[in-house]
């Protein structure tokens, strides 16, 4: 029976295995015929949503890999606003509001709040957490 999964990612890409493990689990969930209700990026996990990362060419580009997954499957990928602001992951609206020189939220991701994490926990069969 197909299940609804949500994933909450607390770890930044490359700093620990949590982000890439989450990515691989997300792919496995979809390959197994299940649905991803939401991806929620919290704390350092917001760094998965930067458009500015330039990882080494011979390594997986984790932010882009998330983007491909999210866009290919129409997944709701939410980045926690408080975590994002304090770590400098801004969409255009915030960059303007706070008069910062650039916006860097990777396309495919949206800024949201903890209510969406709670909602994901309430509406998914499983909430999987990935932390460093």
């Amino acid at each position, binding site marked *: 029976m197909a*299940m609804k999964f949500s994933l909450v990612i607390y770890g930044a890409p490359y700093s620990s295995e949590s982000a890439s493990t989450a990515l691989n689990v997300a792919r496995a969930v979809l390959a197994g015929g299940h649905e991803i209700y939401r991806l929620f990026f919290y704390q350092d996990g917001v760094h998965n949503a930067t458009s500015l990362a330039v990882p080494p060419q011979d390594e997986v580009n984790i932010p882009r890999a998330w983007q491909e997954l999210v866009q290919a499957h129409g997944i709701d990928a939410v980045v926690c606003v408080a975590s994002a602001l304090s770590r400098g992951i801004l969409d255009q609206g915030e960059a303007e509001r706070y008069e910062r020189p650039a916006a860097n939220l990777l396309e495919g991701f949206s800024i949201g709040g*903890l*209510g969406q994490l*709670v909602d994901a926990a*309430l509406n998914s*069969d499983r909430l999987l957490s990935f932390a460093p």
Partner: protein
Amino acid sequence: MTDSPRQEWLFLCRRPPYGGSYPKAALDLLLTAAAFDQAVILAFAGDGVYQLLAGQDGGGIGLKDLSRTWPALELYEVREVVVEAQALRDRNLGEGDLVISARPVENEALRELQARARQVFVF
């Protein structure tokens, strides 16, 4: 397969205060969960018990003292606050050292809480 409205959610705090963003993150999420009418249980284990110490002052290092918010938890209908009894003993702390009353639990009871909760968030 959505569950019934009110679920027991356990927030297990294991990190000490002033060392990073997790203590505040836990507080923000549990308050949101309580606002969504979930039955929040807050547990402090390991070095997390330091978050409950009375008489904190982060001013010298320019950090906020989060322990001031614990007494306000009642307003948000946090169902219960528990603290790992072994962690207190290991650190030579007693219930009198804490800023709020928290029920000391032995490890087996803590495991039961984790098994029983519908969601467990570890910070």
